[in-house]
């Protein structure tokens, strides 16, 4: 589904990724862990097409297409979803208008008929319920005045409605209390599907107690320095990242 080969990228002239390679198959859950500044969030932003991130070398292929040449909105329409670490507040644009615009754009791209207002509202309310966010939040400005946990749950709602093929979750667990974490994890688990893959970018092993990964990768200095199964996450939890960084150096 997704192949990343020898990816080098920089932000403001500073090299962040230095030869990252990763292959993801449909149905898999990959966890990417690593110390601060290792390039975890950069990877998510590059996949989503954020301006200001320069790819200097390497290739990213998504379902046979050169992802790096696609516009941001086309990546989303093709099925890539980035759950933001810090979702953006957009006062004046209601959450419902935003969600409908997104769903319409994605469905149109996939050749599906547009949802009428009633069916859309029904799915939106169901998604709210699954994310444990009151439906009143649909009428508020996008993320406007939402708490950290409410913003993350709003990301989950978008993910449920857009039905992406590849979900990249950028530190979705950071700053969540245990109840909110369980809600988000429950939402992700419910979306697990043989045709859908997840990349969980996280700082904490805790998330992986609730979402069991198939593969765990450690990112350090812009490269994947170790890959393994879920036991690697437990080892990291015990020993920290220092020993790996030392091995690589």
């Amino acid at each position, binding site marked *: 589904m997704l192949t990343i080969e020898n990816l080098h990228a920089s932000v403001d002239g500073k090299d962040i990724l230095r030869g990252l390679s990763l292959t993801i198959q449909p149905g898999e859950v990959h966890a990417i862990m690593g110390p601060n500044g290792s390039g975890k969030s950069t990877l998510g932003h590059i996949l989503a097409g954020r301006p200001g991130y320069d790819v200097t070398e390497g290739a990213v292929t998504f379902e046979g297409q050169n992802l790096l040449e696609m516009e941001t909105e086309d990546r989303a329409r093709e099925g890539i979803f980035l759950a933001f670490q810090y979702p953006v507040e957009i006062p004046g644009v209601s959450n419902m*208008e935003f969600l409908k615009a997104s769903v319409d754009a994605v469905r149109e791209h996939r050749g599906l008929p547009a949802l009428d207002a009633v069916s859309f509202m029904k799915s939106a309310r169901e998604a709210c319920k699954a994310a444990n966010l009151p439906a009143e939040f649909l009428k508020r400005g996008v993320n406007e005045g939402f708490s950290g946990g409410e913003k993350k749950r709003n990301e989950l709602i978008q993910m449920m409605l*857009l039905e992406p093929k590849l979900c990249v979750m950028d530190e979705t667990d950071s700053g969540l209390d245990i109840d909110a974490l369980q809600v988000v994890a429950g939402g992700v688990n419910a979306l697990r599907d043989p045709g859908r893959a997840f990349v969980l970018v996280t700082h904490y092993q805790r998330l992986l107690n609730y979402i069991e990964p198939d593969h765990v990768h450690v990112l350090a200095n812009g490269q994947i320095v170790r890959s393994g199964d879920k036991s690697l996450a437990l080892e990291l939890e015990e020993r920290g990242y220092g020993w790996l960084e030392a091995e690589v150096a």
Partner: protein
Amino acid sequence: MSDFLQAPLADLSQRVPHWLEAIQARARAGWEAASLPTRKTENWKYTSLAPLRDDYQFAEAGTAVAELPATLAAGFGGHRLVFVDGQFAENLSSPAAAIDGLTVCRFADASDEQATDIAGLLGTAIGGDHVFATLNNAALGDGLFIDVKAGAIIDRPVEVLWLNAASAQATAMNQRLLCRVGANASLTIVEHFAGLEGAAPSFCNGLTELHVQDNAFLAHYRLHEEAGEAVHIGGVHTRLARDARYAGFHLALGSVLKRLDLVVHHAGPGAHADLNGVYLPRGEEHIDYHTTIEHAVPHCTTDEIFRGIIGDSATAVFNGRIHIHPDAQKTRAELSNRNLLTSNEATVNTKPELEIYADDVQCAHGATVAQLDAAALHYLRTRGVSREEAEVMLSFGFINELIDGLELDSVRDYLRPILAARFARDEALARHLLLTRRSQ
């Protein structure tokens, strides 16, 4: 002296009621001696009067309009008075059936008692030097007086539509509204300015005076939709007595030239003013809002928010002055003006002015000029929304924050599609903007 409108004024055959003759005569002498402001005149630095023409004529006979276009016909659910080219159009109006405590009368129809009230009040809310107010008095013909008795709560809004319709001749219009809301009373007024499709160039000199008496409430909407070659130079002067509350909302879509002077005078302690506005010039249009808040007495508060989106090679001017007099202790006044430029050729001149002569006050002001938020734009695109639609949504959202706060549903419902269409050159780009209603 200025030649502007001198000849049409001399030819004006319409008689004012005899009890206004003195005011009119004084103003004519004043106007003859006055000069039109130039770019060197204080408060006119960024606005040129060059678009004023020398061939405007007063349409004394009015223009016959059989019915209003569908967009205007619905109104705002209130008692409605319609003036066409400055003349009252009875056939289009649906004035109030007798409502306890509410008087709506034209100057021409005023009873002796009302005439005394009008003559006593007219001009008393206007402070400072406003040369176009002098012109308004000089051209005084008909006008509208809205009076609410002490303690009366008027549920439905009073709406006044000032329509420009003449198609053959460049037209001058004098608009005059005088309103008094008695102690403990409550009223909503919607002033709406628009032009019919195909209307000739026009000049409207608007002047509205609002007196809000002790502990009374007035909500006032003033919506300017005149387009094309329509020039509007107008003023709204509001005088707030003790514990009075005023909520003013202003909207201006662009035309060749609009200039509005909004003055709120806190004349009694404990008064509160909300003054909000939106201006949206594009093309070559020009909109200038000059606001002045006079805090003359203690314990008054003001919240003022104006937002503008300026497109193409349009220009906007916002000058927000807050003047806190020496006696006005315990004043709280906040002013925010934010502007969005959607083109490299668009211009805004924004200037908050605080003049504070009291020492125990809280004041804040801020003015910003920016482009669309890149982070928000990116966020929308990562959800599959095209850049074009995202830009429309964000522009609309920038203004919609103020629209969402409006108390009157009918105004909100009227404005949202107009604003959505304003931001989207292609209708499809606005299709997601009108899904949410507060009433849902």
